[in-house]
């Protein structure tokens, strides 16, 4: 265990300065007193530039995700939770059990150390709750104006159980499409906080680690074809990606898609489509139709899947279009988002 009291205590009233990333005493102090203490685990405590471990048997899966968000703290979470959940989810969407995380921080000079402490505490909390420790990391500090407070890149590693073959190109005509819960909560909560829309309603990010839900789903229906978390670009982007990868079409039913009332309301108000809004604690599953009910029941039995629903089916379509049967009884195409989602004028 490295010595921990060679430096004076870190003053959390201070701010991140360039010296905190310069490789000198200040950096050692920050790493020891903030990162190690908060994220504490056996492998991190080895104090090496890498973490050494024996992987369990099975196929390994790795995923990395850079997290940037304004504001850093939002209703229902902060960038710390997000950076743990996001990568755990990306690993889990292969059907894997996530094992470990690595984290790299880019800090902007001037970031209050108390904010950083808050964020790292959130990471620790999320990692502990998920049982997926952060076992190695790195920190850099850039000059004020060259970053937006704090960027966190996390890499996750996991192991896929035998017999599970979950991949984006496996959707087949006739398969059922399921979603694990309400859509748009994260994107709308962040937007409302960022733009200070002044809307007095309960908008909370759905940021959550989904690996336990996935484990239950894999155990119940190992024949599942695809899993993906509809983050940026929302469900519209995820379904289009899967349709392209599998060279199939998809037909979904608007009335079956769960969206919370306040989220629907804000989307209505701003002219946004909930299908384009980001989620951080939801997944889309595609499985053979005859397993759909069992999968649905399994999802609904888990706290993170209690609003799960079967929303449509995979069809043959050389255009690989995602089509929506509207609430009104017509049809329309569900397109990718072109760029940034922009509210309409009138």
């Amino acid at each position, binding site marked *: 265990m490295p010595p921990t009291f060679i430096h004076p205590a870190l003053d959390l009233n201070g701010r991140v300065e360039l010296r905190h990333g310069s490789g000198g005493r200040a950096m050692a102090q920050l790493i020891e007193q903030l990162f190690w203490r908060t994220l504490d685990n056996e492998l991190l405590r080895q104090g090496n530039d890498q973490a050494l471990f024996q992987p369990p048997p099975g196929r390994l899966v790795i995923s990395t995700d850079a997290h940037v968000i304004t504001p850093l703290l939002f209703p229902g979470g902060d960038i710390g939770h997000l950076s743990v959940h996001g990568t755990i989810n990306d690993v889990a969407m292969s059907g894997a059990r996530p094992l470990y995380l690595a984290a790299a921080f880019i800090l902007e000079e001037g970031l209050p150390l108390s904010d950083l402490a808050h964020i790292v505490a959130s990471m620790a909390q999320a990692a502990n709750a998920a049982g997926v420790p952060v076992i190695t990391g790195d920190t850099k500090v850039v000059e004020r104006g060259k970053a937006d407070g704090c960027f966190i890149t996390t890499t996750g590693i996991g192991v896929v159980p035998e017999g599970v073959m979950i991949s984006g190109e496996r959707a087949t005509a006739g398969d059922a499409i399921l979603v694990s819960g309400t859509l748009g909560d994260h994107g709308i909560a962040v937007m409302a906080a960022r733009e200070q829309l002044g809307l007095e309603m309960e908008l909370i990010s759905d940021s959550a680690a989904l690996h336990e839900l996935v484990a239950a789903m894999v155990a119940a229906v190992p024949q599942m074809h695809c899993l993906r978390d509809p983050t940026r670009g929302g469900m519209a982007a995820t379904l289009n990606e899967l349709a392209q990868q599998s060279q199939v079409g998809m037909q979904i039913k608007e009335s079956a898609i769960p969206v919370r009332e306040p989220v629907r309301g804000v989307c209505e108000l701003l002219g946004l489509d909930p299908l384009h809004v980001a989620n951080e604690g939801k997944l889309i599953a595609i499985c053979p139709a005859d397993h759909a009910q069992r999968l649905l029941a399994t999802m609904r039995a888990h706290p993170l899947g209690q609003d799960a629903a079967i929303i449509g089916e995979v069809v043959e379509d050389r255009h690989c279009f995602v089509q929506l049967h509207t609430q*009104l009884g*017509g049809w329309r195409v569900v397109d990718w988002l072109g760029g940034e989602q922009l509210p*309409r004028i009138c």
Partner: protein
Amino acid sequence: MMTTALKYYLDEDLYALALPLTGGAEAICKLFSVVGQNLGDVKGRSGDQVLQKLLGVPSAALESPLHNHTGLENFILMKYIDEFRDAAVAKQLAAAIACEVDPARQYRLMEFCGGHTHAIFRYGVADLLPPNVVFVHGPGCPVCVLPMARLDHTIQLALEHEVMLCSYGDLLRVPASHGQTLLSAKAQGADVRMIYSTQDALGLARAHPTRQVVLFAIGFETTTPPTAVALTTAAAHALENFSIFCNHLLTPPALRAILTASFDVNSPLGIDGILGPSHVSTIIGSVPYQFVPDEFGIPLVIAGFEPLDVLHSTLMLVRQINQGGCRLENQYQRAVSSEGNRKAQALMQDVFVVRDQFEWRGLGRLPHSALALHPRYAAFDAETRFAVTLPTSTETKGCECAQVLRGQLKPTDCTLFGRACQPDHPLGACMVSAEGACAAYWHYGRFRTPPETN
């Protein structure tokens, strides 16, 4: 559906303005069904108590006509949004239309507003109608008809005068000359801020007293009153670093221009009826459209933006056409009165003057079709405050936006559609805004109108 403009109903400063607006009743109720998750909470209360709760203002401030709006309680106590998208009612309306149309003829109906176009595609309204009822898409998308030169002007303001430029979101991607957009100007270092309401722009001006803050004001009569309020507020508080680049347009002159063109024997449009503007009409009322049946002999039904509104208005037009009728009707009675919002009109008269002419993309120079700041507010006019030398604007070769905006071509008739011109890389303005006909075709209707079959 009323989106960015709607936020002004939330601003207390603007409350007095919103209140007499009968459309405001609808907007506020919509907000309520949006904001008030717990409708049960308000049951049994009177309309003004509900509004008081919603807006946090004393009940003394609640005056007619909203206060006395018939059916206000019903508005509030129903699930507003779903009510106008109900599939069962849609089926009934569609069946009535199918039953009443004469299969031997076509019904070409122009929906004037982008909001209608959007609703038709977003909800698949056309799927419910018989094939001989055809929607012709009109020019009512303020982003689409903004000429490139105005956008070039704005980009110059942002880049050369280093102003803080405040714009509504859907303008940011509109292509100006040389493929430049406000977003690309931002990437080059311009300070472009996306705003949700004109109040946001005022807030920025207050927060950055050393910066010149310019509001890129755009839109038809719906978005004009909030601009007027921003202007009077800035004047009252001597907010000297704030100015307005005014691009507000008037709807009736555009309608007149289209109808005049449609009577041109060389390019007959053959419009049988018109779905008239919805939110615009809450401000200007229904009277300004009387010339459509009177002078052009075409029936016009003022139509709301919800899909059931569109279907209901379609049925009303089909009935008129079958009877050889030619009247102005108002389907959107829950929000539009004949005289409109007098208070907003008075404010607009006070603050703006009508320009002699203004260029509309696709429609050319139209007389008396746009607003400029009144000379008494010249100090707040960005056009006079900042000298700009404009490059010559060049429209994209082969782009048929002009004819699409006039309803003469369908988007899929344009050779660029879906090929060189796509939402990710728009060449014409109709592909940019979600309310542009081309973007609506592309986003929502690719399946049924693939370019190769047209």
